[in-house]
Protein backbone atom coordinates (compact mmCIF):
# COMPACT_ATOMS: atom_id res chain seq x y z
CA UNK A 1 0.00 0.00 0.00
CA UNK A 2 1.49 3.34 -0.91
CA UNK A 3 1.94 5.62 2.07
CA UNK A 4 2.91 9.27 2.11
CA UNK A 5 5.33 10.89 4.47
CA UNK A 6 4.65 14.52 5.37
CA UNK A 7 7.33 15.96 3.12
CA UNK A 8 7.02 13.58 0.22
CA UNK A 9 3.50 13.75 -1.21
CA UNK A 10 2.57 10.96 -3.59
CA UNK A 11 0.82 13.33 -6.01
CA UNK A 12 2.43 16.45 -7.31
CA UNK A 13 -0.67 18.03 -8.85
CA UNK A 14 -3.92 19.04 -7.30
CA UNK A 15 -6.67 16.41 -7.64
CA UNK A 16 -10.29 16.07 -6.57
CA UNK A 17 -11.29 13.90 -3.63
CA UNK A 18 -14.86 13.16 -2.60
CA UNK A 19 -15.76 13.63 1.05
CA UNK A 20 -18.72 11.77 2.57
CA UNK A 21 -19.48 13.53 5.83
CA UNK A 22 -21.92 12.19 8.41
CA UNK A 23 -23.86 15.25 9.55
CA UNK A 24 -26.18 15.84 12.47
CA UNK A 25 -27.74 19.15 13.49
CA UNK A 26 -27.66 18.51 17.22
CA UNK A 27 -28.24 16.02 20.03
CA UNK A 28 -31.13 13.72 19.20
CA UNK A 29 -31.43 15.01 15.62
CA UNK A 30 -31.34 12.54 12.70
CA UNK A 31 -28.12 11.80 10.86
CA UNK A 32 -27.55 12.33 7.15
CA UNK A 33 -24.55 11.90 4.87
CA UNK A 34 -23.53 14.73 2.56
CA UNK A 35 -21.04 14.45 -0.29
CA UNK A 36 -18.56 17.15 -1.28
CA UNK A 37 -15.91 17.21 -4.00
CA UNK A 38 -12.81 18.96 -2.78
CA UNK A 39 -9.78 20.08 -4.83
CA UNK A 40 -6.85 18.71 -2.87
CA UNK A 41 -3.35 20.17 -2.97
CA UNK A 42 -0.33 17.98 -2.17
CA UNK A 43 0.23 17.85 1.58
CA UNK A 44 -3.38 18.70 2.45
CA UNK A 45 -4.92 17.15 5.54
CA UNK A 46 -8.48 16.49 6.67
CA UNK A 47 -8.78 19.77 8.58
CA UNK A 48 -7.65 21.86 5.60
CA UNK A 49 -10.23 20.07 3.45
CA UNK A 50 -12.92 20.66 6.10
CA UNK A 51 -11.97 24.33 6.03
CA UNK A 52 -12.41 24.37 2.25
CA UNK A 53 -15.82 22.68 2.58
CA UNK A 54 -16.89 25.12 5.31
CA UNK A 55 -16.03 27.98 2.96
CA UNK A 56 -17.86 26.29 0.02
CA UNK A 57 -20.66 24.24 1.63
CA UNK A 58 -22.14 22.98 -1.62
CA UNK A 59 -22.82 19.25 -2.04
CA UNK A 60 -22.05 17.35 -5.23
CA UNK A 61 -25.72 17.76 -6.20
CA UNK A 62 -25.12 21.52 -6.18
CA UNK A 63 -27.24 22.04 -3.06
CA UNK A 64 -26.07 24.71 -0.65
CA UNK A 65 -25.90 23.41 2.94
CA UNK A 66 -24.64 24.56 6.34
CA UNK A 67 -20.88 24.53 6.90
CA UNK A 68 -19.85 21.33 8.70
CA UNK A 69 -18.72 21.66 12.32
CA UNK A 70 -15.66 20.03 13.86
CA UNK A 71 -13.30 20.49 16.80
CA UNK A 72 -9.62 21.26 16.47
CA UNK A 73 -6.97 23.09 18.40
CA UNK A 74 -3.27 22.42 18.11
CA UNK A 75 -3.27 21.12 14.52
CA UNK A 76 -0.21 19.04 15.39
CA UNK A 77 -1.62 15.96 17.10
CA UNK A 78 -1.09 17.01 20.69
CA UNK A 79 -4.50 18.22 21.89
CA UNK A 80 -6.64 15.34 20.64
CA UNK A 81 -9.70 17.50 20.00
CA UNK A 82 -9.97 16.76 16.27
CA UNK A 83 -10.41 13.01 16.80
CA UNK A 84 -12.97 11.45 14.45
CA UNK A 85 -13.58 8.35 12.36
CA UNK A 86 -11.80 8.70 9.04
CA UNK A 87 -12.65 5.93 6.58
CA UNK A 88 -14.05 3.98 9.50
CA UNK A 89 -10.97 4.19 11.71
CA UNK A 90 -10.58 6.56 14.61
CA UNK A 91 -7.67 9.03 14.42
CA UNK A 92 -6.80 12.72 14.49
CA UNK A 93 -8.02 14.75 11.51
CA UNK A 94 -5.15 17.24 11.68
CA UNK A 95 -2.46 14.61 11.20
CA UNK A 96 -4.42 12.60 8.61
CA UNK A 97 -2.85 13.53 5.28
CA UNK A 98 -5.12 13.13 2.28
CA UNK A 99 -2.37 11.49 0.24
CA UNK A 100 -2.03 8.80 2.92
CA UNK A 101 -5.73 8.34 3.69
CA UNK A 102 -6.85 8.28 0.05
CA UNK A 103 -3.93 7.84 -2.34
CA UNK A 104 -6.18 7.03 -5.33
CA UNK A 105 -5.82 9.52 -8.18
CA UNK A 106 -9.00 8.30 -9.89
CA UNK A 107 -11.54 11.14 -10.06
CA UNK A 108 -14.49 10.96 -7.65
CA UNK A 109 -17.22 8.49 -8.43
CA UNK A 110 -17.43 4.72 -8.03
CA UNK A 111 -13.94 3.39 -7.30
CA UNK A 112 -12.52 6.87 -7.05
CA UNK A 113 -10.96 8.68 -4.16
CA UNK A 114 -13.50 8.98 -1.33
CA UNK A 115 -12.94 9.83 2.31
CA UNK A 116 -15.68 9.24 4.86
CA UNK A 117 -15.78 11.39 7.98
CA UNK A 118 -17.88 10.27 10.90
CA UNK A 119 -18.03 11.56 14.47
CA UNK A 120 -16.74 9.30 17.24
CA UNK A 121 -19.48 6.81 18.07
CA UNK A 122 -18.81 6.30 21.76
CA UNK A 123 -19.67 9.86 22.78
CA UNK A 124 -22.83 11.93 22.24
CA UNK A 125 -22.70 14.16 19.17
CA UNK A 126 -22.91 17.90 19.77
CA UNK A 127 -23.11 18.74 16.09
CA UNK A 128 -21.68 17.10 12.95
CA UNK A 129 -18.17 15.94 13.89
CA UNK A 130 -18.10 17.51 17.38
CA UNK A 131 -18.68 15.15 20.28
CA UNK A 132 -19.00 15.66 24.02
CA UNK A 133 -16.28 13.79 25.92
CA UNK A 134 -17.52 14.79 29.39
CA UNK A 135 -17.68 11.14 30.48
CA UNK A 136 -13.97 10.73 29.78
CA UNK A 137 -13.15 13.70 32.03
CA UNK A 138 -15.56 12.47 34.70
CA UNK A 139 -13.71 9.14 34.68
CA UNK A 140 -10.37 10.90 35.16
CA UNK A 141 -11.94 12.59 38.19
CA UNK A 142 -13.15 9.25 39.50
CA UNK A 143 -9.66 7.81 39.56
CA UNK A 144 -8.20 11.10 40.86
CA UNK A 145 -5.78 11.58 37.99
CA UNK A 146 -3.71 14.19 39.79
CA UNK A 147 -0.95 14.67 42.35
CA UNK A 148 -2.45 15.93 45.62
CA UNK A 149 -0.53 19.09 46.47
CA UNK A 150 -2.48 22.12 47.68
CA UNK A 151 0.40 24.54 47.19
CA UNK A 152 -0.20 26.51 50.40
CA UNK A 153 3.24 25.81 51.86
CA UNK A 154 6.61 24.64 50.67
CA UNK A 155 7.00 20.86 50.60
CA UNK A 156 10.73 21.12 50.11
CA UNK A 157 12.62 19.29 47.41
CA UNK A 158 10.70 16.50 45.66
CA UNK A 159 11.81 12.87 45.71
CA UNK A 160 14.73 11.92 43.49
CA UNK A 161 13.68 10.54 40.12
CA UNK A 162 15.71 7.97 38.20
CA UNK A 163 15.96 8.37 34.42
CA UNK A 164 14.47 4.89 33.97
CA UNK A 165 11.45 5.64 36.07
CA UNK A 166 11.08 8.99 34.40
CA UNK A 167 11.12 7.36 30.98
CA UNK A 168 8.42 4.89 31.99
CA UNK A 169 6.18 7.60 33.36
CA UNK A 170 6.86 9.99 30.51
CA UNK A 171 5.34 7.58 28.00
CA UNK A 172 2.11 7.42 30.02
CA UNK A 173 2.05 11.17 30.55
CA UNK A 174 1.77 11.88 26.82
CA UNK A 175 -1.92 10.92 26.78
CA UNK A 176 -3.92 13.75 25.20
CA UNK A 177 -7.41 12.44 26.17
CA UNK A 178 -8.26 12.05 22.50
CA UNK A 179 -10.42 8.99 23.11
CA UNK A 180 -9.13 6.81 20.25
CA UNK A 181 -8.54 3.96 22.71
CA UNK A 182 -12.14 4.25 23.91
CA UNK A 183 -13.64 4.49 20.43
CA UNK A 184 -11.88 1.27 19.35
CA UNK A 185 -12.57 -0.62 22.58
CA UNK A 186 -15.23 -3.34 22.34
CA UNK A 187 -15.84 -3.04 26.09
CA UNK A 188 -16.35 0.74 26.11
CA UNK A 189 -19.90 1.36 24.98
CA UNK A 190 -21.66 4.62 24.43
CA UNK A 191 -23.48 5.77 27.56
CA UNK A 192 -25.42 9.01 27.44
CA UNK A 193 -26.83 8.87 30.98
CA UNK A 194 -24.39 10.52 33.43
CA UNK A 195 -25.85 8.48 36.31
CA UNK A 196 -24.54 5.33 34.61
CA UNK A 197 -21.02 6.64 34.04
CA UNK A 198 -19.72 5.67 37.47
CA UNK A 199 -20.44 2.00 36.92
CA UNK A 200 -19.54 1.81 33.22
CA UNK A 201 -16.12 0.81 31.94
CA UNK A 202 -13.55 3.60 32.30
CA UNK A 203 -11.43 2.49 29.34
CA UNK A 204 -7.71 2.13 28.70
CA UNK A 205 -6.65 5.79 28.93
CA UNK A 206 -8.11 6.21 32.40
CA UNK A 207 -6.60 2.94 33.65
CA UNK A 208 -3.26 4.09 32.28
CA UNK A 209 -3.56 7.48 34.01
CA UNK A 210 -4.32 5.73 37.31
CA UNK A 211 -1.12 3.71 36.85
CA UNK A 212 0.80 6.92 36.02
CA UNK A 213 -0.33 8.75 39.15
CA UNK A 214 0.03 5.67 41.37
CA UNK A 215 3.61 5.59 40.20
CA UNK A 216 4.27 9.18 41.22
CA UNK A 217 5.93 9.40 44.66
CA UNK A 218 3.41 11.98 45.90
CA UNK A 219 0.53 10.84 43.71
CA UNK A 220 0.81 7.43 45.38
CA UNK A 221 -0.88 8.81 48.51
CA UNK A 222 -4.17 8.42 46.62
CA UNK A 223 -3.33 4.94 45.36
CA UNK A 224 -5.79 3.07 47.64
CA UNK A 225 -8.67 5.27 46.51
CA UNK A 226 -7.71 4.85 42.85
CA UNK A 227 -7.52 1.09 43.27
CA UNK A 228 -10.92 1.01 44.98
CA UNK A 229 -12.39 2.54 41.83
CA UNK A 230 -10.33 0.34 39.50
CA UNK A 231 -11.42 -2.84 41.30
CA UNK A 232 -15.09 -1.84 41.27
CA UNK A 233 -17.72 -1.85 38.51
CA UNK A 234 -16.34 -0.27 35.36
CA UNK A 235 -12.77 -0.79 36.56
CA UNK A 236 -9.90 -2.72 35.05
CA UNK A 237 -11.71 -6.07 35.43
CA UNK A 238 -14.13 -5.00 32.72
CA UNK A 239 -11.35 -4.93 30.13
CA UNK A 240 -11.78 -7.79 27.68
CA UNK A 241 -8.13 -7.85 26.56
CA UNK A 242 -8.84 -7.26 22.91
CA UNK A 243 -5.82 -4.94 22.87
CA UNK A 244 -7.35 -2.62 20.26
CA UNK A 245 -6.56 0.36 22.47
CA UNK A 246 -2.80 0.00 22.23
CA UNK A 247 -2.98 -0.35 18.45
CA UNK A 248 -5.00 2.81 17.82
CA UNK A 249 -3.33 5.07 20.39
CA UNK A 250 -1.67 7.85 18.35
CA UNK A 251 0.80 8.43 21.18
CA UNK A 252 1.83 4.77 21.20
CA UNK A 253 1.25 4.60 24.93
CA UNK A 254 1.81 1.02 26.17
CA UNK A 255 -1.82 0.74 27.29
CA UNK A 256 -1.87 -3.04 27.59
CA UNK A 257 1.11 -2.85 29.93
CA UNK A 258 -0.80 -0.31 32.00
CA UNK A 259 -3.77 -2.70 32.06
CA UNK A 260 -1.51 -5.52 33.27
CA UNK A 261 0.06 -3.23 35.87
CA UNK A 262 -3.38 -2.10 37.05
CA UNK A 263 -4.47 -5.74 37.22
CA UNK A 264 -1.49 -6.53 39.43
CA UNK A 265 -2.08 -3.51 41.68
CA UNK A 266 -5.75 -4.38 42.06
CA UNK A 267 -4.93 -8.01 42.88
CA UNK A 268 -2.46 -6.95 45.58
CA UNK A 269 -4.92 -4.34 46.83
CA UNK A 270 -7.65 -6.98 47.18
CA UNK A 271 -5.35 -9.36 49.08
CA UNK A 272 -4.30 -6.54 51.42
CA UNK A 273 -7.92 -5.56 52.01
CA UNK A 274 -8.88 -9.17 52.61
CA UNK A 275 -6.34 -9.53 55.39
CA UNK A 276 -6.62 -6.05 56.86
CA UNK A 277 -10.41 -6.28 56.77
CA UNK A 278 -10.90 -2.83 55.33
Amino acid at each position, binding site marked *: MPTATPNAPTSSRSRTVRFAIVRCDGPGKPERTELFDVPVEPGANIISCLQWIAANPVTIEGVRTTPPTWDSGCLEEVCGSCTMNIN*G*RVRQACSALIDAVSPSTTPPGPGGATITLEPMRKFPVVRDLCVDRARFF*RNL*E*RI*KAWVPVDGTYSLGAGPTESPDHQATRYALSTCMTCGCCLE*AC*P*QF*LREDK*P*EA*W*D*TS*FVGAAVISQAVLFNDHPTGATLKPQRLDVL*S*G*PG*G*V*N*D*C*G*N*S*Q*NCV*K*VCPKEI*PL*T*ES*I*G*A*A*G*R*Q*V*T*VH*AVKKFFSGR
Partner: protein
Amino acid sequence: MSETAHEAPAKQQPFMQRHHFLLRRLHSLTGVMPIGVFLINHLLTNSSVVWGMIDPKAGKTGHGGVATFQHEVDFIHSLPYLIIIEIFGLWLPIAFHSVLGVYYATTGRANNARYPFQDNWRYTLQRVSGYVGVLFIFYHVATLRWGWTFLVPGGTRWSAEYAASTLAQTLRGHASGLTLAGVGVSLFYMAGVSLLVFHLANGLWTAAITWGLTVSRQAQRRWGYACAGLGAALMAMAWSAVIGFATLDPVRARLVEESLRSAHRAEPALTAAPDAAPRRP
Protein backbone atom coordinates in the same frame (compact mmCIF):
# COMPACT_ATOMS: atom_id res chain seq x y z
CA MET B 1 -15.15 18.72 45.02
CA SER B 2 -18.27 16.94 43.95
CA GLU B 3 -16.58 13.64 43.37
CA THR B 4 -19.41 11.59 44.84
CA ALA B 5 -22.04 13.38 42.79
CA HIS B 6 -23.20 10.23 41.00
CA GLU B 7 -22.00 7.65 43.49
CA ALA B 8 -24.77 5.57 45.02
CA PRO B 9 -24.22 4.40 48.60
CA ALA B 10 -22.71 0.91 48.68
CA LYS B 11 -25.78 -0.83 50.07
CA GLN B 12 -28.04 0.46 47.30
CA GLN B 13 -25.87 -1.02 44.59
CA PRO B 14 -27.19 -4.11 42.83
CA PHE B 15 -25.63 -7.46 43.77
CA MET B 16 -23.48 -7.72 40.64
CA GLN B 17 -21.93 -4.32 41.34
CA ARG B 18 -21.43 -4.81 45.07
CA HIS B 19 -19.48 -8.02 44.48
CA HIS B 20 -18.04 -6.96 41.17
CA PHE B 21 -14.40 -7.77 41.93
CA LEU B 22 -15.06 -11.08 43.66
CA LEU B 23 -17.38 -12.33 40.92
CA ARG B 24 -15.04 -11.23 38.12
CA ARG B 25 -12.06 -12.94 39.70
CA LEU B 26 -14.01 -16.08 40.68
CA HIS B 27 -15.15 -16.28 37.08
CA SER B 28 -11.53 -16.10 35.97
CA LEU B 29 -10.36 -18.55 38.63
CA THR B 30 -13.02 -21.20 38.00
CA GLY B 31 -12.04 -21.18 34.34
CA VAL B 32 -8.55 -22.30 35.28
CA MET B 33 -9.35 -24.36 38.34
CA PRO B 34 -11.27 -26.64 38.36
CA ILE B 35 -12.57 -26.34 34.79
CA GLY B 36 -9.28 -25.91 32.91
CA VAL B 37 -7.49 -28.57 34.94
CA PHE B 38 -10.42 -30.92 34.40
CA LEU B 39 -10.43 -30.29 30.65
CA ILE B 40 -6.74 -31.22 30.41
CA ASN B 41 -7.37 -34.47 32.33
CA HIS B 42 -10.51 -35.21 30.36
CA LEU B 43 -8.77 -34.83 27.02
CA LEU B 44 -5.84 -36.90 28.25
CA THR B 45 -8.26 -39.68 29.25
CA ASN B 46 -10.33 -39.56 26.10
CA SER B 47 -7.42 -39.41 23.71
CA SER B 48 -6.23 -42.65 25.29
CA VAL B 49 -8.35 -44.37 22.65
CA VAL B 50 -5.53 -43.31 20.31
CA TRP B 51 -2.42 -43.20 22.49
CA GLY B 52 -3.45 -46.43 24.22
CA MET B 53 -2.74 -48.22 20.95
CA ILE B 54 1.00 -47.73 21.40
CA ASP B 55 0.93 -49.38 24.83
CA PRO B 56 2.29 -52.89 24.13
CA LYS B 57 0.68 -54.33 27.26
CA ALA B 58 -2.79 -53.02 26.45
CA GLY B 59 -2.21 -53.95 22.84
CA LYS B 60 -2.46 -57.65 23.64
CA THR B 61 -6.19 -57.21 24.31
CA GLY B 62 -6.91 -56.73 20.61
CA HIS B 63 -7.24 -52.92 20.68
CA GLY B 64 -4.93 -51.08 23.06
CA GLY B 65 -6.96 -47.87 22.77
CA VAL B 66 -10.21 -49.48 23.83
CA ALA B 67 -8.52 -51.32 26.72
CA THR B 68 -6.67 -48.23 27.99
CA PHE B 69 -9.75 -46.05 27.75
CA GLN B 70 -11.78 -48.67 29.63
CA HIS B 71 -9.05 -48.80 32.26
CA GLU B 72 -9.15 -45.00 32.67
CA VAL B 73 -12.95 -44.93 32.88
CA ASP B 74 -12.92 -47.74 35.45
CA PHE B 75 -10.45 -45.72 37.52
CA ILE B 76 -12.67 -42.61 37.42
CA HIS B 77 -15.72 -44.64 38.35
CA SER B 78 -13.83 -46.16 41.26
CA LEU B 79 -13.34 -42.72 42.84
CA PRO B 80 -15.23 -42.34 46.11
CA TYR B 81 -18.14 -39.87 46.22
CA LEU B 82 -17.92 -39.40 42.45
CA ILE B 83 -21.28 -37.64 42.33
CA ILE B 84 -20.13 -35.11 44.95
CA ILE B 85 -16.93 -34.47 42.98
CA GLU B 86 -19.01 -34.04 39.83
CA ILE B 87 -21.55 -31.66 41.35
CA PHE B 88 -19.21 -29.42 43.32
CA GLY B 89 -16.06 -29.83 41.28
CA LEU B 90 -17.57 -29.69 37.82
CA TRP B 91 -21.22 -28.98 37.29
CA LEU B 92 -21.57 -26.02 39.66
CA PRO B 93 -18.27 -24.35 38.64
CA ILE B 94 -19.14 -24.84 34.96
CA ALA B 95 -22.64 -23.43 35.50
CA PHE B 96 -21.18 -20.46 37.40
CA HIS B 97 -18.52 -19.80 34.77
CA SER B 98 -21.08 -20.13 31.96
CA VAL B 99 -23.81 -17.93 33.43
CA LEU B 100 -21.38 -15.18 34.42
CA GLY B 101 -19.44 -15.55 31.19
CA VAL B 102 -22.55 -15.07 29.06
CA TYR B 103 -23.51 -12.08 31.20
CA TYR B 104 -20.04 -10.52 30.87
CA ALA B 105 -19.98 -11.20 27.14
CA THR B 106 -23.13 -9.10 26.78
CA THR B 107 -21.26 -6.11 28.26
CA GLY B 108 -19.15 -5.83 25.09
CA ARG B 109 -19.85 -5.08 21.45
CA ALA B 110 -17.51 -6.75 18.93
CA ASN B 111 -16.06 -4.40 16.32
CA ASN B 112 -13.97 -6.68 14.12
CA ALA B 113 -15.13 -5.16 10.85
CA ARG B 114 -13.55 -1.82 11.74
CA TYR B 115 -10.62 -3.13 13.75
CA PRO B 116 -9.68 -6.50 12.24
CA PHE B 117 -6.59 -7.04 14.40
CA GLN B 118 -5.63 -10.58 15.35
CA ASP B 119 -6.02 -9.84 19.06
CA ASN B 120 -9.48 -8.42 18.41
CA TRP B 121 -10.49 -11.61 16.61
CA ARG B 122 -9.37 -13.58 19.63
CA TYR B 123 -11.52 -11.32 21.79
CA THR B 124 -14.58 -12.14 19.67
CA LEU B 125 -13.72 -15.81 19.30
CA GLN B 126 -13.36 -16.08 23.09
CA ARG B 127 -16.99 -15.02 23.41
CA VAL B 128 -18.27 -17.13 20.50
CA SER B 129 -16.40 -20.18 21.80
CA GLY B 130 -17.98 -19.55 25.19
CA TYR B 131 -21.50 -19.54 23.74
CA VAL B 132 -20.94 -22.63 21.59
CA GLY B 133 -19.02 -24.27 24.44
CA VAL B 134 -21.97 -23.91 26.82
CA LEU B 135 -24.29 -25.59 24.29
CA PHE B 136 -21.78 -28.30 23.55
CA ILE B 137 -21.04 -29.11 27.20
CA PHE B 138 -24.74 -29.21 27.96
CA TYR B 139 -25.38 -31.63 25.09
CA HIS B 140 -22.31 -33.69 25.99
CA VAL B 141 -23.19 -34.04 29.69
CA ALA B 142 -26.93 -34.45 29.12
CA THR B 143 -26.57 -37.22 26.58
CA LEU B 144 -23.63 -39.16 28.01
CA ARG B 145 -23.87 -38.52 31.73
CA TRP B 146 -27.54 -37.85 32.40
CA GLY B 147 -28.75 -40.35 29.82
CA TRP B 148 -30.92 -38.03 27.72
CA THR B 149 -30.79 -40.57 24.92
CA PHE B 150 -33.59 -38.87 22.98
CA LEU B 151 -30.95 -36.34 21.92
CA VAL B 152 -28.67 -39.08 20.59
CA PRO B 153 -29.22 -40.22 16.99
CA GLY B 154 -29.84 -43.94 17.25
CA GLY B 155 -30.67 -43.55 20.93
CA THR B 156 -27.47 -45.15 22.22
CA ARG B 157 -27.03 -44.99 25.99
CA TRP B 158 -23.41 -44.55 27.08
CA SER B 159 -22.29 -47.10 29.61
CA ALA B 160 -19.18 -46.96 31.79
CA GLU B 161 -18.79 -50.74 31.49
CA TYR B 162 -18.59 -50.56 27.71
CA ALA B 163 -17.09 -47.12 27.56
CA ALA B 164 -15.41 -47.06 24.14
CA SER B 165 -18.00 -49.03 22.14
CA THR B 166 -21.02 -47.09 23.41
CA LEU B 167 -19.20 -43.77 22.99
CA ALA B 168 -18.23 -44.65 19.41
CA GLN B 169 -21.83 -45.62 18.76
CA THR B 170 -23.22 -42.29 20.06
CA LEU B 171 -20.84 -40.42 17.79
CA ARG B 172 -21.45 -42.64 14.74
CA GLY B 173 -25.21 -42.87 15.09
CA HIS B 174 -25.35 -46.67 14.70
CA ALA B 175 -23.43 -49.76 15.81
CA SER B 176 -22.79 -50.89 12.26
CA GLY B 177 -21.68 -47.67 10.65
CA LEU B 178 -21.55 -43.93 10.38
CA THR B 179 -24.99 -42.43 9.74
CA LEU B 180 -25.68 -38.94 8.44
CA ALA B 181 -26.85 -37.84 11.89
CA GLY B 182 -23.71 -39.42 13.27
CA VAL B 183 -21.60 -37.26 10.99
CA GLY B 184 -23.49 -34.27 12.40
CA VAL B 185 -22.83 -35.31 15.99
CA SER B 186 -19.15 -35.99 15.25
CA LEU B 187 -18.73 -32.60 13.58
CA PHE B 188 -20.47 -30.91 16.51
CA TYR B 189 -18.02 -32.66 18.84
CA MET B 190 -15.10 -31.60 16.67
CA ALA B 191 -16.24 -27.96 16.68
CA GLY B 192 -17.17 -28.02 20.37
CA VAL B 193 -13.89 -29.43 21.67
CA SER B 194 -11.80 -27.26 19.34
CA LEU B 195 -13.55 -24.10 20.50
CA LEU B 196 -13.26 -25.11 24.14
CA VAL B 197 -9.54 -25.80 23.79
CA PHE B 198 -9.14 -22.36 22.21
CA HIS B 199 -11.23 -20.87 25.01
CA LEU B 200 -8.95 -22.38 27.64
CA ALA B 201 -5.67 -21.44 25.95
CA ASN B 202 -6.79 -17.88 25.21
CA GLY B 203 -8.41 -17.59 28.63
CA LEU B 204 -5.14 -18.54 30.30
CA TRP B 205 -3.39 -15.86 28.27
CA THR B 206 -5.86 -13.10 29.18
CA ALA B 207 -6.21 -14.23 32.80
CA ALA B 208 -2.49 -13.60 33.26
CA ILE B 209 -3.05 -9.94 32.29
CA THR B 210 -6.21 -9.65 34.39
CA TRP B 211 -4.44 -10.93 37.51
CA GLY B 212 -1.37 -8.87 36.72
CA LEU B 213 1.03 -11.79 36.20
CA THR B 214 2.13 -10.62 32.77
CA VAL B 215 2.62 -6.86 32.65
CA SER B 216 5.27 -6.09 30.06
CA ARG B 217 4.69 -6.68 26.37
CA GLN B 218 7.53 -9.21 26.34
CA ALA B 219 6.03 -11.13 29.24
CA GLN B 220 2.67 -11.18 27.50
CA ARG B 221 4.30 -12.45 24.32
CA ARG B 222 6.27 -15.16 26.12
CA TRP B 223 3.21 -16.33 28.06
CA GLY B 224 1.37 -16.24 24.73
CA TYR B 225 3.80 -18.80 23.30
CA ALA B 226 3.31 -21.00 26.35
CA CYS B 227 -0.48 -20.81 26.00
CA ALA B 228 -0.28 -21.46 22.27
CA GLY B 229 1.91 -24.51 22.96
CA LEU B 230 -0.52 -25.85 25.53
CA GLY B 231 -3.41 -25.12 23.18
CA ALA B 232 -1.71 -26.99 20.32
CA ALA B 233 -1.05 -30.02 22.53
CA LEU B 234 -4.63 -30.02 23.83
CA MET B 235 -5.95 -29.56 20.31
CA ALA B 236 -4.00 -32.64 19.18
CA MET B 237 -5.50 -34.63 22.06
CA ALA B 238 -9.00 -33.30 21.42
CA TRP B 239 -8.90 -34.13 17.73
CA SER B 240 -7.39 -37.56 18.26
CA ALA B 241 -10.12 -38.32 20.80
CA VAL B 242 -12.99 -37.26 18.55
CA ILE B 243 -11.51 -38.80 15.39
CA GLY B 244 -10.49 -41.89 17.35
CA PHE B 245 -14.02 -42.53 18.57
CA ALA B 246 -15.79 -41.46 15.40
CA THR B 247 -13.74 -44.00 13.43
CA LEU B 248 -13.88 -46.77 16.02
CA ASP B 249 -15.92 -49.84 15.11
CA PRO B 250 -18.35 -50.31 18.04
CA VAL B 251 -18.80 -54.02 17.35
CA ARG B 252 -15.09 -54.74 17.48
CA ALA B 253 -14.64 -52.48 20.52
CA ARG B 254 -17.45 -54.34 22.26
CA LEU B 255 -15.64 -57.67 21.74
CA VAL B 256 -12.49 -56.23 23.32
CA GLU B 257 -14.50 -54.93 26.27
CA GLU B 258 -16.27 -58.28 26.72
CA SER B 259 -12.93 -60.07 26.84
CA LEU B 260 -11.65 -57.49 29.37
CA ARG B 261 -14.77 -58.07 31.53
CA SER B 262 -14.35 -61.85 31.51
CA ALA B 263 -10.64 -61.49 32.26
CA HIS B 264 -11.50 -59.25 35.22
CA ARG B 265 -14.13 -61.65 36.47
CA ALA B 266 -11.59 -64.44 36.25
CA GLU B 267 -8.94 -62.38 38.02
CA PRO B 268 -9.86 -62.92 41.70
CA ALA B 269 -9.58 -66.67 41.24
CA LEU B 270 -6.20 -66.33 39.58
CA THR B 271 -4.77 -63.98 42.19
CA ALA B 272 -6.19 -65.98 45.06
CA ALA B 273 -4.57 -69.16 43.88
CA PRO B 274 -0.90 -68.42 44.73
CA ASP B 275 -1.87 -67.42 48.29
CA ALA B 276 -3.84 -70.55 48.82
CA ALA B 277 -1.16 -72.79 47.45
CA PRO B 278 1.79 -73.59 49.69
CA ARG B 279 4.91 -71.74 48.68
CA ARG B 280 7.66 -73.64 47.06
CA PRO B 281 10.81 -73.60 49.06
